[in-house]
């Protein structure tokens, strides 16, 4: 970890955390490039928050190495943390203090933050998350979404090189979710690296440049979104009334197709659909040519890379079974 280190905002090697006999994070090798919006994806209970706690020095690693902003943890923790803003597993505030008093309190805890600019920075951070109108209101009167925004404002109190947001859109309405996406983009414009965890793929897909997928404490995929998409199988989708005939033609080319019943609603698309993985050695135009030559009426033909959702489901499983 020497030469490549400065380009990475977060780097872990064989990071492992066990609680008793249970391994919560297992040999994690994260590499978060500087300047990226990095999505940390995984179902509930897959070890995301535990990993984040280790990245911030809240929990110690059982084994393995962590470097954040080029500094070794936990040794360099006091020098690293002032450069990192974080929202960890939901907001935590004093209910009997106002929103701005809470931020002033947390800012005064940071010895690098200037007391002279404190009130201005707090007001600016509240403005950025749209809480100016509620700045003087006690936090116990805040809705969950407002607390979430206040938590994000806390991460923005001073200019940071790295911002860690654990499930930032929890409790936010669709409008608030859009605003968070917008905010994250504006942060990267200033060169900040943003590390966002989520169990929602759509959220990651819309705001991230890179992603890693966790499952049961293991890292199962990592890379830029494009790289991740390419790991999935490219598929063709054919709409035709001559399903049986088409199946034969496709089989001749070495494609194993599934027939999907036509959609309920009628119209032009009331034809069966055939879906088949596309092998690399077969060109898409070749298939169409063969189909037409064999008298298959082609009413629709698309080639699609697999969506991230397919990948996510393939990697982490479907449904509600919480990873053990």
């Amino acid at each position, binding site marked *: 970890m020497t030469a490549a280190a400065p380009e990475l905002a977060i780097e872990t090697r064989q990071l492992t955390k066990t609680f008793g006999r249970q391994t919560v994070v297992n040999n994690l090798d994260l590499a978060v490039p500087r300047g990226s919006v990095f999505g940390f994806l995984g179902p509930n209970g897959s070890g995301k928050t535990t990993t984040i706690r280790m990245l911030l*020095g*809240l929990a110690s690693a059982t084994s393995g190495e962590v470097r954040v902003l080029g500094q070794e943890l936990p040794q360099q923790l006091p020098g690293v943390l002032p450069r990192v803003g974080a929202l960890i597993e939901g907001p935590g505030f*004093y209910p009997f203090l106002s929103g701005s008093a809470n931020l002033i309190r947390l800012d005064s805890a940071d010895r690098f933050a200037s007391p002279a600019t404190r009130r201005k920075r707090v007001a600016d951070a509240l403005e950025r998350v749209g809480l100016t109108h509620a700045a003087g209101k006690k936090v116990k009167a805040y809705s969950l979404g407002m607390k979430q925004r206040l938590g994000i404002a806390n991460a923005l109190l001073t200019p940071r090189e790295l911002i860690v947001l654990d499930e930032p859109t929890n409790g936010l309405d669709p409008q608030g979710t859009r605003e968070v996406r917008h905010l994250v983009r504006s942060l990267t414009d200033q060169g900040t690296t943003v590390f966002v965890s989520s169990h929602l793929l759509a959220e990651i897909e819309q705001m991230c440049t890179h992603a890693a997928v966790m499952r049961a404490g293991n890292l199962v995929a990592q890379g830029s979104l494009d790289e991740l998409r390419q790991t999935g199988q490219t598929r063709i989708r054919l709409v035709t009334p001559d399903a049986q005939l088409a199946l034969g033609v496709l089989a001749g080319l070495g494609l194993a197709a599934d027939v999907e019943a036509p959609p309920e609603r009628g119209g032009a698309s009331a034809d069966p659909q055939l879906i088949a993985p596309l092998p690399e050695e077969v060109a898409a135009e070749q298939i169409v040519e063969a189909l037409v030559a064999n008298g298959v009426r082609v009413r629709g033909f698309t080639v699609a890379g697999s969506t991230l959702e397919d990948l996510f489901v393939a990697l982490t499983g479907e449904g509600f079974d919480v990873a053990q």
Partner: protein
Amino acid sequence: MSPSNSGVASVASGAAAAAARPRAGWSFLASELVLLFRRRRTWVLLATLAAIPVLVAVAVRLSTARAPGSGRGPAFLDQITQNGLFVSVVALTICVPLFLPLAVGVVAGDTIAGEAGAGTLRYLLVAPVGRIRLLLVKFAAAIAFCLAATVVITAAGALIGAALFPVGPVVLLSGDTIGVPDSIVRALLIAGYVTVSLAGLTAIGLFVSTLTDAPVGAMAATVVVSIVAQVLDSLPQLDWLHPYLFTHYWLGFADLLRQPVEFSSFSSNALLQLAYVLIFGSLAIGRFTSKDILS
């Protein structure tokens, strides 16, 4: 959430700021004190403590109207009628065994566990506040509360005493008589003595508070410890143990009412409390610095 750049300098200047020398961090201690003394709970505790000398003074005033002092009740109770300034001393004597440990238990037990329970501990630590620094600031604030509590009792006692009884020269335990200004100095010395007496319990509360995320549990445990220590202190079979109990000198402030002032129990008490602070402070640091913060 407007993504405007207003008020946000570039990341480069953030890095420069981080490279700068950190401040001494007094503003965090100030923030801690403001937080503690702005809480309604703190005010309720202090008001309750202030009510005790008032109750004592009123009760004595009403009963002496009918019968003169009988010699029963807490030490110095009879002196109240001759000199109202003694209300402070009587009130402290009443508060030291239970009411003050209760109040201190609430504040000291809440130090770390309260932050953990509210979910604010993780944000303080990544702000960042070093863990040892957090313990020191929490301990200092809790000691400030001990001082405030004893001063409140002393002041409330002096005020109500002056209102209901004559104020004049005070006859000390040694038989000497001192004037009003000197007796105020003695009252403040006693408040100082009681504050020092509570330092050991505060350190114990701080340590207990690092063991749990449930503040109420830490508060209760701290109060129970103080009661157990007093019970042990009252068992003659455990004579050998008594000088090591942090409650042993709690009521020793009577020595400050002699002429000349007898400081030996003050210094024994201070040494004992210092030992407790060092031991339980170290335990708290050892525990807290190695703990995974999962709250």
